[in-house]
């Protein structure tokens, strides 16, 4: 059971959250992107060994959708890479 930092509430038990999946690139304009680009957007999910940027929804708390960087090897919540948004 992790302790997830919520920007509004501070650290809260993982059980208050719903997992929102890894952060993906922005949704492409469906009229501009080609089929490969659209399928890649739908199906390519980041799955690194190490820090992953992911969404969580504080559904039982303040309702915020937030992102964290979580190390998939340890569950440690870490700083994102310096070039990350």
């Amino acid at each position, binding site marked *: 059971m*992790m302790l997830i930092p919520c920007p509004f509430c501070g650290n809260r*038990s993982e059980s208050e959250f719903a997992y929102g999946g890894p952060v993906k690139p922005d949704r492409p304009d469906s009229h501009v992107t080609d089929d490969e680009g659209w399928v890649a957007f*739908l199906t390519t999910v980041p799955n690194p060994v190490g820090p992953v940027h992911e969404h969580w929804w504080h559904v039982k708390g303040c309702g915020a959708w937030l992102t964290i960087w979580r190390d998939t090897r340890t569950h440690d919540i870490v700083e994102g890479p310096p070039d990350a948004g």
Partner: protein
Amino acid sequence: MQVRRLPTGGRIDRSQSLAFRFNGKEYQGFSGDTLASALLANNVRLTARSFKYHRPRGIVGSGPEEPATLVELEGRRASANQAATTVRLEEGMAARSVNCWPSPGLDMGAVNQLFAGLIPAGFYYKTFKWPGWHLYEPAIRKAAGLAGAPVAPPLDGHFEAVHAHADVLIVGAGPAGLMAALVAGRTGCRVFLADERTEAGGSLLDRRLEIAGKPALEWVAESVAELKSMPNVTHLLQDASVWAYREHNLLMVNERSPANSNVLERNWRIRAGQVILATGAIERGLVFPDNDRPGVMLASAAQAYVNRFAVKPGERAVVFANNDSAYAVAADLHASGIDIAAIVDSRDAVPEDARDLAGEIPIKSGSVVIGIRGKRAVKGATVAERDGRGAEKVDCDLLLHSGGWNPTAHLFSQSRGSLRYDDTLATFVPDKAAQACVSVGGAVGEFSPASALRTGAEAAASATGSEMPDLPAVTEGHYSIAPLWRVDARGAKGKAFLDIQNDVTVDDVHLALREGYDNVEHVKRYTTGGMGFDQGKTGNINIIGTIALQKGVPIQDVGTTTFRPPYTPVSFGAIGGIREESVVLPYRHTPITRWNLDRGAFMYEAGARWRRPGYFPRDDETFQEAVNRECRAVREDVGVYDGSPLGKFELKGGDVGRFLDHIYTNLMSTLKPGQCRYGLMLTEDGLILDDGVAMRLGKHRWMVSTSTAHADTVHGHMEELLQTQFPEWNVYVTPVTSQWNNATVCGPKAREVMAALGSDIDLSHKGLPFMSFADGQVAGLPARVVRVSFTGELSFEINVAPRHMRDLWERTMEAGEPFGIEPVGSEASHVLRVEKGFLSLGHEVDGTVDAHDLGMSWIMSKKKRDFVGKRSVELRRRGNEIRRELVGLLPANPNEQIPEGAPLTPGGERRPTEGLVTACVWSVVLDRWVALALLENGKSRHGETVHVRLKNATIAADVMEPVFHDPDGLRMRS
């Protein structure tokens, strides 16, 4: 008769005699005893049979490290696989040995010993692999023993699981843990202390030491008293094992004797700022032939029995050691009147301190035990020089051994901290921490009481940023060791056990290595050494030493296996806590649940945890009769159902219109206030997420209703889009599912019932047409009436606040009585929607179909440039693959029901399916069974006959439009 009980001493209350049963026999013990100490006091030596070979076993340890005597508790506290050394004796307790039938003295499974040579490591893996392990597993598990699960819940009391938080969590109340707690507690921070023994003191309870010039236990009592006086020391738990160290400093504690006597066991989930692991150390055994015989005991255990429990584990002992700690044991036992035949020390040189402790006891240095006499009880030992020369027999009934001490690093390792091998201590000690924790005292290899106090204080001072206190003086005990991984002497024959619990011998490890399993983790799995709930407490380091010796590599290169939770066995009940029986699953009620039950409704869960009435049987009606009656009421007269569970959300803001256009497949922004529209939501990959109704309440104010089951999913979907994709859009979402309940009056006479209820809303066809709504009063209650229909009949959904729901419901039943109104359950609702061919998520919508397959191409807006899922549906359909499309089915025999989910195959033959039946109900309008199905190219196959393939039969059915009633929808629009 407690024949082995010393006349004085011990931490037992001799005024409180406790009767207990073990393997059917009656015994007496004292309050303060464990089951193990009480058995030893009664001179019960043969207490168990081993896991694999069914060898006779006795009590080996004095705490959670006990590898041999596992018991099953019966009666009130029924539970399986408890170490007898950790079971607190209680009046009337009944226990029996596991692994033997009918008793350890006469064990039928002991025949395995005859075949011991045939069941080496890996035997099961090699032998029982065809056709599959699962064929053999049940029988082998039974033969292998270990206790069965209790067959019934505890007779009285319940389990509890609870959360807790602490600035500093201290594990263990020995000298290091108590000192840490004092230092941390004095700073005012929140301290939580948990200790696995029934009283504080840790190893001090087992020994005869002085702290600050007084008996050590006086210092313990003073320390506990001081801690109890501190309000910030939130918890001081005894008989409470910390059994798991999870991520983000979450630790699990199993408290076995809560103050609330109704609570059988309590499981704490503690989130700690800083953890101090003062878990002490566990003595490891020495590895020599027949080192598992009843009467062969860890030296420290014998010391505990003499000092803590005032029990003599034997009359004449041989002490076999490779380190100094056993000398104090010999001295304590000698002082209690136990004859020590000899101290056999594998080292050539014995330090002076140790020799002084031994006094007159003869010491045989450079010597080892090469054999044990006696199968069911030790009768003597054979002692020889290290290479086996000069063997001589010594009579004894107790063989105490000490192979050194291993820091109890289980929790540290579970926290992902690394261990390093320490040559001086000949064991693994905590190295780098991975979380906010620090090990102190014996747990970090500081085996003397003085260094335990010091390291405990240092850790707490550092964790709290406080000063080091003055430490009480303790006589510094010296500890040195020369590792002896196994006795390898001429004349040493017989099984030498590394892991007594799992029956793993030196030969097993050698076999595993020969067969190529040379990684320590592979050896563990192949031999099972260190597995199960033993988790390597006594045997692991010896296994690692044996591997290193055999491979000829340094021991640190072998490394350790991963320690896993639980550190000690935990009841499943304690983990689940109070979540059992009626609350084992969550449930939701609407305000008329009581009314439904009083009316005799058959209630069950119908999505999203709502408990709803399935049907309302009358007198001796069958299920089908009740459902038919409810359906006929709706089709012919009038019915009412409770539609409260539908998900409802209020949306507000300048961008709601375009947001709804984005999430629904059809156009919503063109709705005018007072109108509503049915809509379909897709996921981005083009699958159907939900269907529901959007209503426009005002210029910037909307309400969206969803299917009951998907309310939470849709909520998450909307919030995700708004917060992550369109944060600049002005849309606020407020869940109002429980602000609006409704009674939906439906049927040809619905308008008459509404008139009888009375309303200030114009409910005429013109005043409130289909797919519109109005706010006003109904039966004198503030209400919103919505003209939607999920039954195909004229319907008025009367929405009110829950505080008015029961009122509304009763008035509706009263007003409807002259019209034959019936309450309608979810079974009838299902029939009514199938007759109309209305889709149901989970039936017709299964994650492969799209709106076109369902005959709803009209709902896929062509006007909108984009919406969620649009591109994916187009992409998928461009392949022109054969699609399964929604059709109606009429079984050739109108009285034949088709099981829902049944496959359709060409001609009913054994061929790949061409579809499946999604729903089949008895239609009251057609008076026959009707079904909905997904069928390949179904839309173009109306009029064909298809076949349902069942296991032993086929059912022919005619394909038609998926609507059996009022295809033009005139009734619901009336």
